[in-house]
């Protein structure tokens, strides 16, 4: 396909799309645009090594300037896209410049879900490198930190802060914050990880007020308890950066709606990848917006194929996969998980240091959660790829051809 490709958003989805294009032999111009002056950088380390201070900005770069030059990718930083005119095939930037395109890839990601709590210098969010730098400076040993939101990001921030010598409390309205993803039973199991590590929690209760309190903040919970802290981090999810696309002609509703291989619905020559994209999923028979790093990279490869090798079937993203380093363990989730599925427990976290929960439906493996057992997660992902039976997966993990070892009692 002749012409130029413009990619709006230079986080992992956008950068991997540019790299995929070159890898597939695309020779036309590629322009990569991002509002963030620090772009392109990788986000997973922002709650871990970068926040801890052990990695610097250079270490988390996704595409150093010299490498961008070698790839023939023009990088425009600190430029926010404000409007898309699909009629003229032009993106308007907030400074007034316009960029024309032959093919457009929307990769503008997501931003922290807004909360009513803003106390400058004491209540933090975490999405960008600048957020992480600000928070890093505030994580002083001995300080008391409240983390609002017990999802993966909250858990990783809590862990990093605890390791730096802060006293940490994680607050979430759900008794089992992960239950929406992994079901109640496994969610309750994961909710024990913070205590096991030394992080306090207030689960099953919402924070309804965060206010300045001396040099710090107080957090008032729904049950009336007041927690006095020095700072708080709010991690209550993300919302897609799709506002700039209203009245563009794209279908925009909690993300940009696309077909099952990333082409935006309703318009020619536009694709969307990453946290902003809502692809149709044949497996789920509906559109889904997936916020995982691996999904962003797989979507980028797929869209790269559609643009650079349109005559070939583009490789589709595989089953969902996400990992989190939290509370001294690696938690991994793959495929479809939840209480509607049969669950099979293997291992024992306290006695063996590892546990795997396999989710099945009609005898077939549908998903898995592992804690401290990366080789089991990989075996499950391989099983998912080939449609394995749960029995086969259990045999692989227990290493025997006979009766599987009695699953550990799930401690709830």
């Amino acid at each position, binding site marked *: 396909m002749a012409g130029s490709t413009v990619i709006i958003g230079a986080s992992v989805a956008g950068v991997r799309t540019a790299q995929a294009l070159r890898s597939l032999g695309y020779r036309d111009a590629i322009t990569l645009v991002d509002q963030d002056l620090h772009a392109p950088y990788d986000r997973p380390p922002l709650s871990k090594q970068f926040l801890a201070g052990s990695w610097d900005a250079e270490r988390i770069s996704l595409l150093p300037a010299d490498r961008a030059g070698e790839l023939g990718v023009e990088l425009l930083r600190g430029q926010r896209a404000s409007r898309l005119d699909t009629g003229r095939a032009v993106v308007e930037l907030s400074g007034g410049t316009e960029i024309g395109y032959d093919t457009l890839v929307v990769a503008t990601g997501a931003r922290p879900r807004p909360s009513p709590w803003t106390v400058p210098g004491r209540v933090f969010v975490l999405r960008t490198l600048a957020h992480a730098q600000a928070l890093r400076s505030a994580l002083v040993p001995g300080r008391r930190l409240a983390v609002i939101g017990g999802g993966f990001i909250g858990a990783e921030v809590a862990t990093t802060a605890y390791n730096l010598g802060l006293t940490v409390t994680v607050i979430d309205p759900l008794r089992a914050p992960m239950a929406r993803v992994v079901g109640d039973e496994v969610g309750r199991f994961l909710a024990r990880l913070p205590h096991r590590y030394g992080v306090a929690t207030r689960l099953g209760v919402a924070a309804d007020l965060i206010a300045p309190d001396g040099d710090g903040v107080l957090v008032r919970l729904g049950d009336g308890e007041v927690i006095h802290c020095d700072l708080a981090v709010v991690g209550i999810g993300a919302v897609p950066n799709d506002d700039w696309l209203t009245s563009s002609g794209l279908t925009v509703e909690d993300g940009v709606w696309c077909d099952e291989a990333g082409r935006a619905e309703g318009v020619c020559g536009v694709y969307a990848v990453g946290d902003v994209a809502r692809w149709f999923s044949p497996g789920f028979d509906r559109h889904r917006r997936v916020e995982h790093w*691996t999904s962003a*990279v797989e979507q980028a490869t797929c869209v790269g194929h559609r643009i650079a090798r349109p005559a070939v079937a583009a490789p589709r993203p595989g089953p969902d*996969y996400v990992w989190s380093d939290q509370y001294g363990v690696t938690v991994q989730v793959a495929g479809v998980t939840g209480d509607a599925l049969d669950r099979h427990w293997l291992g024992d976290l306290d006695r063996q240091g590892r546990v795997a929960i396999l989710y099945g439906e009609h005898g077939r493996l549908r998903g898995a959660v592992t804690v401290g057992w990366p080789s089991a997660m990989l075996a499950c992902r*391989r099983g998912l790829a080939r449609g394995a039976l749960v029995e086969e997966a259990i045999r692989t993990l227990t290493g025997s051809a006979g009766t599987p070892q009695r699953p550990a009692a799930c401690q709830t």
Partner: protein
Amino acid sequence: MPRVEADRTACKGYGNCVIAAPDVFDVDDDGTVVVRCESFPEADRARIEAAVRSCPVAALSIRDD
């Protein structure tokens, strides 16, 4: 021929490489990457570059000697 290189110290066993190119990558019993065959034909480059880019900790690279 181009060659794959793996930094086994950086590897965390996430396994994206194995999913992307099971003919080239595997993991050992510790969950660390094993490169099954270092050299690969030029015709496979795009697929193996995609596998290299799928590593969340950038433990993989390609060398053209």
